[in-house]
């Protein structure tokens, strides 16, 4: 995608976020705006880094690392960033993601139905296995290192 495409898509995403934040949580557009701009800037920055840096890391990794850096105590803008982002309700950015994700898999509905219950059961095991084994290791290690 070109830079202009990125900016356009992110602007749509920002509008979606503000709409969800307003409808779902009664937070006015103007109140959401600083947080939305921060998040969009980080997203654009992450995409830019992924483009420039020759490592094969996913764009999401750059975005979350950037977010971490601007909000950590060493960052001069951490207070502003954290309070602005806190205005955006946790699930507000997700509704639009869900809408796009649903549309993006809508042509797989027929294959999904055809696959039947066996694949559903296997998928449930796949997801449960990943979650539960990570959880067991995490819990054990947190106790071992006296974090909890």
């Amino acid at each position, binding site marked *: 995608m070109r830079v202009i495409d*990125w900016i356009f898509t*992110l602007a*749509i995403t920002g509008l*979606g976020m503000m709409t*969800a934040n307003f409808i*779902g949580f009664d937070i006015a557009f103007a109140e959401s705006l600083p947080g939305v701009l*921060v998040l969009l800037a*980080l*997203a654009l920055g*992450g995409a830019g880094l992924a483009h420039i840096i020759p490592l094969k*890391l996913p*764009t999401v990794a750059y*975005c*979350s*690392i950037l*977010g*971490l850096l*601007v*909000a950590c*105590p060493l960052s001069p803008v*951490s207070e502003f960033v*954290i309070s602005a*982002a806190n205005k*955006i309700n*946790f*699930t*507000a*950015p*997700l509704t*639009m993601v*869900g*809408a*796009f*994700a*649903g*549309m*993006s*898999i*809508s*042509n797989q509905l027929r294959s*999904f139905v055809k*696959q039947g219950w066996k*694949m*559903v059961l*296997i*998928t449930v*095991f*796949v*997801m*449960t296995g*990943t*979650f*539960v*084994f*990570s*959880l067991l*290791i*995490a819990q054990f*290690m947190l106790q071992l290192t006296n974090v*909890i």
Partner: protein
Amino acid sequence: MKKNNMMYPTLLERIKTEWIIYALAFVFILIADSIGQIKIPVWKGTFIIFPIFYALFLGILSGPNTLKIIDDKRVKAASKLVGVAILPFIAKLGINAGANIEKVISAGPALLLQEFGNLGTIVLAMPLALLLGLKRESIGAAHSINRETNLALIQDMYGADSPEGQGSLSVYITGGMVGTIYFGFMASMVAATGLFHPYALGMASGVGAGIMMSSAVAALSEVMPEFASEISAMASASETISGIDGIYMAIFIGLPLCNWLYNKLEPTLGRVTKAGREAAERIGK
């Protein structure tokens, strides 16, 4: 990414094609966020239906298999938009991690080691797949959580038409349809046992699939509101690490383990059930 550049000559061309996708997304937001969350008590936990699930469902309904509001070309365009639209959310979680950086660092060893838990799917799902009559499909199906990168990896290594590729694709499709809602529900049920610390639950949510992680974190934050910030901080850290190591984990550990386990288990577990024996005959082994 090169191909995308060629897709539309100008932004205006793109908007002419995609405007219906944006319009639908806003309509879905209006509907979904007006309904808001619905909480259904289940056992000691809660089954929470978030706006994202309605939006996902409405999106699936609008496609070429049902209401036909959007065609295959727009389906493809939508899948590019998902990857962009989730970035601000990922950045928000990164901010949470930064705000809780000391806790994240103190949990470092646990964060790194729990990554190996993502291989747990193999141990759990491979035997089941064999019992249900899958053959080499089980390798693709059980090797990881099977999101976009994993699917691409399997198709690259074995070919899209291979049994392994088909197994991966099947779980990918099912995961897209029901995975998001299931992952959040399962996380809140596991939390309801009271056996696990919120930090550990947060870490376990970061499985290298943004939308699944968001579902789990949203559900966990609802059932443990006093830990919401830490849960998303741990999830963000774990998700970031998974995003970086996931593909190597699959290439160097997951797939070899799958192949080894398959060779061990297929001659026994794979012949226990009728489905397994029939499948073995069909492929002539």
